[in-house]
């Protein structure tokens, strides 16, 4: 590493640590990196900013170019053209999580998921895309720290998604964590997991493939069941001597149960077994055994979906709701600002709402949050709107046939809480090909909304 880089990084760390020390509420950057250095005073007088064009209006910084952050970025400026929007993401290549299981069995190609450019999105929607990782936050100074320098904000949206919580499935030893994560990925966060899982599908030659389903409000409730259906269909279509075993922590299929049971019973009777109330309590990656409270199951291959929690970034920034079982952020139920701070918002799958953690929810919520931000930048308030969860599942891959749910949520003002699905929730649980096609169009609509301009 060259000297300049070292020094620059040192200054950055120094600045952040200083902020932590003086402002009292800066969090997230560990101080250990500066230990042993004698020149802290140099850092004190210098704050290493990320070089950005001068803000032309209130600066709205958005961390996370996923469904939530991208939606807010696309809509904020449309709603309030004065906004100066900066989007920060640590990845430089988008690959869609939603719809990714369809790629494993060839219903869509990789282009469908990944031919979406952050550059085009930034140009189309008039914002700046910064490829950097957020590392810390100083709310008193309204400053976000990234690995490439600090950014001052007027409004900050944190939409960093989720992290896995391995301990909840009894996987605690780091060696065990990395073994499970690398060998049998859950496939609900990063594109590389999808690449590995697709390979597993294509290379599966027989035996038992286990798909686990965690408890809690995990990302994409139907996702693991859908993947199991696709795998079962793949086994059937290719005459593989194998089966899918779903180890479900829950007593019932968590959503669209009728449609999934219908597929289990009519399409996959001999190739799919569903075991309810079978929460994973440990994994032996060498012996290929998954333990549950009362049993243990051998597998030939698996996708182990552990419990989830809000992205660790939320905890690093000190924003966790102490009541949240999934370390989600403590934000206003209706308007998503961190309690007591109208300048910082947490949206998408890091929120502490009982909403379905899904793309449509993040997309509709993001459109609303853009309006909230636009209003607040002008000193106004707007009425609450429910996000909407329109969610398809391909219960059959050959030919592609889907089922669907369309839900909104009810807000109880007396409790200041979301109390459940709204009464007009609808489901379409008899799978058909028209819905299979609509499912693909559904995703493309969201790609257009978030990237298109």
């Amino acid at each position: 590493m060259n000297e300049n880089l070292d020094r620059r990084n040192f200054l950055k760390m120094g600045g952040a640590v200083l902020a932590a020390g003086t402002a009292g509420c800066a969090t997230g950057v560990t101080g250990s990196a500066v230990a042993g250095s004698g020149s802290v005073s140099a850092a004190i007088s210098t704050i290493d900013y990320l070089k950005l064009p001068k803000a032309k209006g209130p600066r709205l910084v958005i961390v996370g170019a996923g469904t939530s952050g991208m939606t807010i970025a696309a809509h904020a400026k449309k709603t309030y053209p004065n906004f100066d929007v900066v989007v920060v993401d640590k990845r430089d290549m988008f690959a869609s999580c939603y719809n990714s299981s369809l790629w494993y069995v060839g219903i869509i190609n990789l282009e469908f998921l990944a031919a979406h450019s952050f550059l085009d999105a930034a140009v189309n929607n008039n914002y700046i895309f910064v490829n950097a990782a957020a590392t810390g936050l100083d709310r008193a100074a309204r400053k976000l720290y990234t690995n490439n320098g600090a950014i001052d904000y007027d409004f900050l949206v944190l939409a960093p998604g989720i992290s896995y919580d391995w301990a909840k499935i009894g996987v605690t030893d780091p060696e065990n964590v990395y073994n499970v994560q690398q060998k049998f990925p859950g496939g609900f966060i990063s594109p590389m997991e999808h690449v590995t899982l697709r390979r597993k599908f294509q290379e599966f030659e027989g035996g038992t493939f286990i798909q686990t389903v965690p408890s809690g409000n995990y990302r994409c409730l139907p996702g693991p069941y859908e993947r199991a259906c696709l795998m079962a269909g793949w086994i059937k279509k290719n005459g593989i001597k194998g089966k899918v075993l779903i180890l479900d922590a829950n007593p019932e299929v968590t959503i669209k149960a009728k449609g999934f049971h219908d597929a289990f019973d009519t399409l996959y009777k001999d190739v799919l077994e569903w075991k309810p109330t079978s929460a994973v309590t440990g994994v032996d990656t060498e012996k290929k055994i998954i333990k549950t409270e009362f049993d243990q199951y051998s597998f030939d291959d698996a996708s182990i979906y552990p419990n989830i929690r809000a992205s660790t970034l939320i905890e690093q920034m000190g924003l966790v709701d102490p009541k949240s079982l999934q370390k989600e952020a403590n934000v206003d139920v209706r308007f998503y600002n961190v309690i007591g701070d109208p300048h910082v918002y947490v949206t998408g799958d890091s929120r502490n709402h009982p909403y379905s953690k899904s793309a449509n929810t993040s997309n509709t919520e993001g459109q609303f949050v853009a309006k909230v931000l636009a209003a607040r930048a002008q000193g106004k308030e707007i009425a609450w709107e429910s996000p909407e969860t329109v969610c398809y599942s391909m219960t059959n891959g050959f030919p592609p046939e889907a089922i669907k749910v369309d839900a909104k949520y009810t807000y109880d003002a007396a409790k200041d809480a979301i109390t459940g699905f709204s009464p007009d929730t609808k489901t379409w649980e008899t799978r058909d090909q028209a819905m299979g096609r609509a499912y693909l169009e559904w995703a493309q609509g969201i790609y257009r909304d978030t990237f298109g301009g």
Partner: protein
Amino acid sequence: MDRRNFIKVCSAGAAALATGVHTQLVYAGTVKDFARVKLVDANGKPLKASSLSKDEAYVFGYPFVGTPSFLIALPSAAPAGATLKTESGEEYSFPGGVGSKKNVVAYLAVCTHQLAHPEKKGSVMAYIAGNSETAGRAVAITCCSHNSAFDPADGGRVVIGKAPQPLPGIRLEHDAATDEIYATGMYGADMIEDFFKKFKGNLNKEYGIGKYREAPAGTVQAVLLSKYSVDADRC
């Protein structure tokens, strides 16, 4: 009413008096004139307003080759007058149906939510004459992509869903003497350029480079949605 529309309205009215041709009158600044084309069937025979199917929509490429629109014969007359508003706040009024029963209407078949539209490989947009689960009623244009529904008897107004504005209308003209139908323009939200921008790649592939932007000349074929798309989702 601005001067431009006033003139249009007056001249259309005059034409109606003189010839028995009824043009939909749109009282707002959202009207755009496009080539006047006659709607014909797949064999080039003119469609007659009084013998259109009432079960499903016809699809025709208007105002451009690459922009699908729906022609719909409603079960009953669609009276003019409802005031509608685009997302950007422009007001306009629904000109009502044409034909001897005043039940024939047309809309751009591009959902105002995220621009889904009928494609050859399938459609998430459909006109549902019977009961639509999404709309919670009969007579609706539904977009099953994210479940929005529009009222074709009321200017394309949003019934339910996240669609932020009514479907743009296609201005029709009806010749009482021949019962033939013409498309002459568009009113409501102006979303064609946005549509082109987002679908350029696909449209170039489907119609040939740049061809989707061409205006139909003289006549335009309108075919039943069930013939146009392999399969249409109904919700």
